[in-house]
Every structure is written in structure tokens, then in C-alpha cells.
């Protein structure tokens, strides 16, 4: 089976990428191919990267509080490209009351600070059809 491909993207203007790097490393160690975008990516850039890299999962890391504007834009962009089967995940600081609207917008999961990386790995494996190599 082919490896699961994950785009780990830092969207928005904050420069704290430790969380994104921890997740990227954990997914790599779980046998996934992780494409890391680097900092300050716009929604358009995240969508283009997700399409070109043909990823199964887009994991956005966002600490700036802009999730309610940035994330729906990314989801809309992916849908416009016909990539609505991509699993959308969000990590960072997200107030509880925002989780509902984000899930409604199409975010499959929101992971807060202190999340066990194993939990993220299991979530992806449970939701992506490709499965990971044996």
C-alpha cells in the first residue's frame, strides 16, 4: 500500500512552528510522507500545495487566532479544485466555542496544545482510505 501523504502547513502570521514540527516528525516516524510548507502560507498557497502534492491530509497549524477566516478559505479552495476528499485537521489554540463552526465548515478534527502525537497518528490512520504500509 502507498504511504499516507500529509501536508503540514503554517497558515497565518504567527511564527511558532514548534508544534507543527513535532507533528511532522511524529507522522514521519509513523511511516507517513510529510510535506512541510514552512511559515506564513496564505490559503491559496496551502490549496495549491495540497493539490500539487496530492495529499490525503491537510494539517493546519495556527496560533494567531485567525482560524475562523483562514481555515474555511482553505476548505473552499480545496472544494473548488475538486479535492473535497482531503482530510482537514487543525492544530493550535482554538477556543471551545469555535470548534463547532469549524467542524461544520469541514474540519475533521481540532487538536489543542498538549495533544498526544499518537492520538493524531491514530486519527489519521482511522480516517484515510489509503492506509499505511505494513
Amino acid at each position, binding site marked *: 500500500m502507498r*504511504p499516507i501523504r500529509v501536508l503540514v502547513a503554517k497558515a497565518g502570521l504567527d511564527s511558532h512552528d514548534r508544534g507543527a514540527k513535532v507533528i511532522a516528525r511524529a507522522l*514521519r516516524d509513523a511511516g*507517513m510522507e510529510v*510535506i*512541510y510548507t514552512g511559515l506564513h502560507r496564505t490559503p491559496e498557497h496551502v490549496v495549491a*500545495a495540497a493539490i*500539487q502534492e496530492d495529499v490525503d491530509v491537510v494539517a493546519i497549524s495556527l496560533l494567531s487566532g485567525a482560524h475562523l477566516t483562514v481555515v474555511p478559505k482553505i476548505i473552499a479552495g480545496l472544494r473548488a479544485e475538486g479535492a473535497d476528499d482531503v482530510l482537514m485537521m487543525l492544530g493550535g489554540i482554538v477556543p471551545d466555542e469555535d470548534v463547532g463552526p469549524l467542524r461544520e465548515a469541514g474540519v475533521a478534527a481540532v487538536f489543542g496544545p498538549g495533544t498526544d502525537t499518537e492520538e493524531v497518528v491514530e486519527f489519521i490512520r482511522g480516517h484515510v482510505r489509503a492506509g499505511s504500509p505494513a
Partner: protein
Amino acid sequence: MSQLAAALLQGDRRALARAITVIETGGAERAEILKALHGRGGQAQVVGLTGAPGAGKSTLVSRLAGALRDAGERVGILAVDPSSPFTGGALLGDRVRMGTGEGLFIRSLASRGHAGGLSRATADAVRLLDAAGFSIILLETVGAGQGEVEIMRLAHTTVVVTVPGLGDDVQAFKAGIMEIGDIFVVNKSDLPGANIAARDLTMMLMLGPARDWSPPVLQTSALKGEGLDELIKAIRDHAAHLRGAGLWDRHAADLLRRRFEEAFAEVALRRLRATAEGSGAWQVAAEAVARGDLDPYAAAEQVLGQVAPASAEVPGG
């Protein structure tokens, strides 16, 4: 024709991306796509960039791609990074240096256990980009040591990227990667020692046999965007040289011949192994070898003798 192949030929980027996934995965759909694209393309100049980890390949590729795009080229980028030998996972980080990549198609490929600096699917991925109408395909290898020379077979033009301070002039004389450059680039030319590195390379090239093409030694600072015009000129000069000398067509023919050999080896291995595993001969031989009862070559001959008819062997071969 497969829908994916048809959409790819129309310039649909998502179809291209999907098709690359398919050829990376292998199987019947890969064969179908490659069959559909047979005879398409052939116009793209494939430019390979290789060099040590940290030489600045990604930044240089990014800047070069931007400059080529601004000069009217349609630029596709394939960037190969290593897969973990332990988990099969990979961290593909070339996009970090490539910024937003406006107007470019960038695809990261994991090496997936393939040695030589590329991935097994890279040659087919190049064919896909070629068929999709890109005029220049930039191919970035994994950070190479001294022996990752596969790139020179796949690329029309191989650019060897080095930086000041990687070693004395003897390093420049070694076999392997230093032999394969059509263009040499001393990147990070703002660092001390750039002139010395360029001089050592030039010396090395001058002492070699005269060739139809004399590889230029250029200096760039990818970070500052310096030296890019000279690099683009050298890339174009090399393409003109290949076409003028009839080498462009020969390159394509060589590539196809080698792809046939690889495809044959792949299909033959799969079939013969499946037959041997079906009869149990494979497992018996593998265990005997593991126990030390049989040497690997004798075991291979023994299993092949069972699954491939001896009459098919060349007499005396």
C-alpha cells in the same frame, strides 16, 4: 484513454498530481497512464540539480524556477528527499525554501528506498510533466554524497552545486559526482573561499580530456539572487549544444531503452517470484540460505531452475 491521462494532457494540474501518485504506487493503472502518454512530450528540457546537503539546492531551484518563469518558461519542479529506512516515512521539506511557488508546479517525491539520489518513479514523473506541457523540468536530487550519479542519465543537463569550504582541490578530482556536471555552480558565492572553490573546479576540468562541451563554472548566491542570468544562459547554451550535436534525440532513445530494461526486470522479477512463492520453492530456498545451508547464488539458481524453463537459457550463457 484513461480519464486521468486525458485531463493531464489538457493541462489539468490536479490530474497531473493524481497521475504522479498513481505512477508512484505502480500497478495496472500506471501502465495504462504511461501507455496513453506514449509518444507525447519530448520537448521539455530536464535540468537536474545535485550536490551536498545544505549546498543550497532548494533555494537555487526556487530562484532559478522563478527567473525561468519570468522569462516565459513553463516550469515544473520535482524535488526528491529521502525516505526513512526504518519507518518508510519521509519529511519532504523542499517547499520551505521554495516560498509560495506562484505559477509553478512543485511536487515532492520521497525516495522510497531507492538509492542513487532519485526515487524509482522519478523517470516516469518526468514523463508526466513533459507530456503535460512543461518546457523546463527542474529535478532536485536528495542531498548527494559522492556517488549519487543517476541524475545524469535522466537529465539533459546536470548542474552540480557546491559551496565554498567543502574540501581541498583533491575533492574536486574525485570520481563520481564531480564527473557528471554539464554545469558547475559554486553557490553561496558571498562566502569566503568561493573564488578558490571555483578555481579548483576549473583546474580539474582543464586537466581532463577535451570534450565537445566545456562545462562552465559559475558562481551564484541563490539567497541574493545573484548569478541566475548566467546560469540560465548556460542551461540554454547546453540545450542548444545537445540539439546541434544530435544528442537530444539520442538522450531520449537511451532513456527509453533503459526504461524498457527496468520495466522488463520489474515485470520478470514479479512474475518469477510469484510463481516461486506459489510453489513454495522461494520460501524453502530463503530459509536454507538464512540457516547457512545454501549460498545465495546457488539458491537463486536453484529456484530459477524450477520456475524458468532451462531451455529458455542462452546456450553456454
